[in-house]
């Protein structure tokens, strides 16, 4: 009896499906079948991009982690042994710790200066009333952002050299008697990096100020707050998530800077990213290069996560 009923139900549902199919031009019915089909097409649509990222980035990073614990043998490129000697060398030699400390110091000072200059720039762009001027300012921010570091470093070399524009101008104005050495110093690297990173800060902050809108500021001022009070007590606290993500972006990019320190810092001002290249390509010590790269990534990641956790406690979910 049960069997007959079951067969009957199957027959009816089969009829319903074929009927539905003929009505809508052979496409399967909505519901379970459709969802399953969507899931399988989703798999096929995602497969190529995920393969590219896995093969081109994730597997290579895993191999890099493996290389960093291999024993260095100048004679053979094979990965041999498991050892922590590369990490011990990095954290044992004051020379490398100094490079890490210098990189951190440069990244932190650049982030702080970018914040000080980026807040007014982003605020002005977000509050400018003329559409044309706003578009022009946004383009003037984004074009340098995507210009590439080599071109900008060349510009700073022209400006900061001993016979560069700044020294020539100061000499002819009689403000200095001898050219001031700026290029190939730490300050030149900080100046160069600020120019590279500032557009990122401005763009992150601009959209946040734009979204906050002017209503809160106007309300604060209607209640008698002067512009500065309204800005520091109302607008800036509301913009904290954007301030934080802008700072984080600047910090991470400054930690990993390559072209700027190499070209305008000169050979004596060493930072982490150029050291990775030097160890790999000039010394052929791939295990140690991998170690420096991973230390750089880990330090950046730990500081980013720690600071976002600390800020989350202070300001709630960012």
């Amino acid at each position: 009896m049960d069997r007959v009923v079951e067969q009957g139900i199957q027959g009816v549902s089969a009829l319903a499906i074929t009927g539905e199919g003929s009505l809508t031009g052979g496409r399967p019915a909505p519901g379970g079948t459709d969802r399953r089909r969507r899931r399988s097409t989703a798999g096929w649509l995602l497969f190529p991009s995920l393969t590219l990222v896995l093969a081109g980035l994730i597997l290579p990073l895993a191999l890099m982690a493996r290389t960093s614990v291999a024993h260095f043998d100048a004679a053979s490129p094979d990965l041999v042994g498991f050892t922590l000697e590369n990490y011990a060398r990095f954290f044992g030699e004051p020379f490398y710790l100094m490079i890490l400390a210098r990189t951190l110091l440069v990244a932190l000072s650049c982030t702080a200066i970018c914040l000080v200059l980026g807040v007014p720039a982003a605020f002005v762009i977000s509050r400018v009333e003329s559409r044309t001027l706003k578009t022009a300012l946004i383009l003037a921010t984004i074009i340098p952002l995507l210009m590439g570091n080599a071109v900008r470093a060349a510009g700073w070399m022209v400006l900061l050299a001993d016979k560069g524009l700044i020294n020539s101008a100061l000499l002819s104005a009689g403000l200095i008697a001898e050219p001031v050495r700026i290029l190939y110093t730490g300050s030149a690297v900080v100046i160069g990096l600020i120019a590279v990173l500032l557009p990122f800060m401005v763009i992150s902050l601009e959209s946040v100020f734009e979204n906050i809108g002017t209503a809160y500021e106007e309300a604060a001022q209607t209640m008698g707050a002067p512009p500065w009070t309204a800005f520091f007590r109302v607008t800036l606290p509301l913009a904290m998530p954007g301030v934080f993500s802008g700072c984080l972006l600047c910090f991470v990019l400054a930690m990993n800077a390559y072209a700027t320190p190499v070209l305008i810092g000169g050979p004596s001002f060493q930072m982490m990213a150029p050291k990775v290249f030097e160890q790999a390509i000039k010394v052929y010590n791939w295990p140690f290069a991998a170690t420096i790269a991973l230390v750089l990534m880990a330090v950046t990641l730990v500081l980013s996560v720690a600071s976002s956790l600390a800020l989350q406690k202070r300001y709630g979910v960012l």
Partner: protein
Amino acid sequence: MTGSRSPFPRFLSDGSFRPVMVGGCVAAFIMVLSPLAAIIWVSFFENKIISFPPTGYTFDWYRAAAAMPQFRDGFFTSLELGVVATLVSLIVGVPAALVLARGRFPGREAIQSLLLAPLIVPGIVAGAALYMFLIEVELASGVQVAMTFTGLAIAHSLIALPWTVRLVTASLVGLDPQLKEAALTMGAREFTAFRLVTWPLIRPGVVAGALFAFIASFVDLEKSLFLVGPGMTTLPIVIVNYLEWSIDPTIAAVATVQIAIISAGLVLTDRYFKLARAF
């Protein structure tokens, strides 16, 4: 400070607030734009050794730069790489964006972060890692990939991918799914609905994604550094190698050409897709 001619809202114009804010903004733009202005100016200097003020102005350095094989080769390598990387990133990235924009499903966040990861992993680390990986592949299979066009194309496709995924997803998210459903209800096949309804709506995002992808690939330095080889060097690396020895109006002319290409590309992109939305 009458505020009537200023482009700035009136209520922000008392006291020192506006001058300080505008001053900070001007300082920021001077920091960002002065190196670009300087390099463009120097490219027209007559004197080969850069000194200020110049003895005169000339266009000769552009001709000199175009005649130097290293710049010509670097330029065409970067151009080819940019085109290949953009095409690959569109072919693999647009389908992924179509899935990501469908809405929430388990694992969506993880897949999205994975596809945007090439933007987050530092270029020098990713480049070194890919180089080591390709060397291992070569040791295992005997096929050389590192220091060939293929190796560079893989690296540059990875540079380009996050931009196409991000911009196409952004243009799809605002899309009403009912538009496509309406087309399907009226009897359109899946592909016809995509071609006639979805595609025209996402085209600005795809064009912007492609242009961003191309620019990101064209200017990349760190990721390519390990993968370039003899006869296969990209323009930014040629520029850096040259700058390590000397700076003269010839390299300034090359840099100016790069500035012109990228500015034109971005101004063009802005007409399809408001640039501020890309970040």
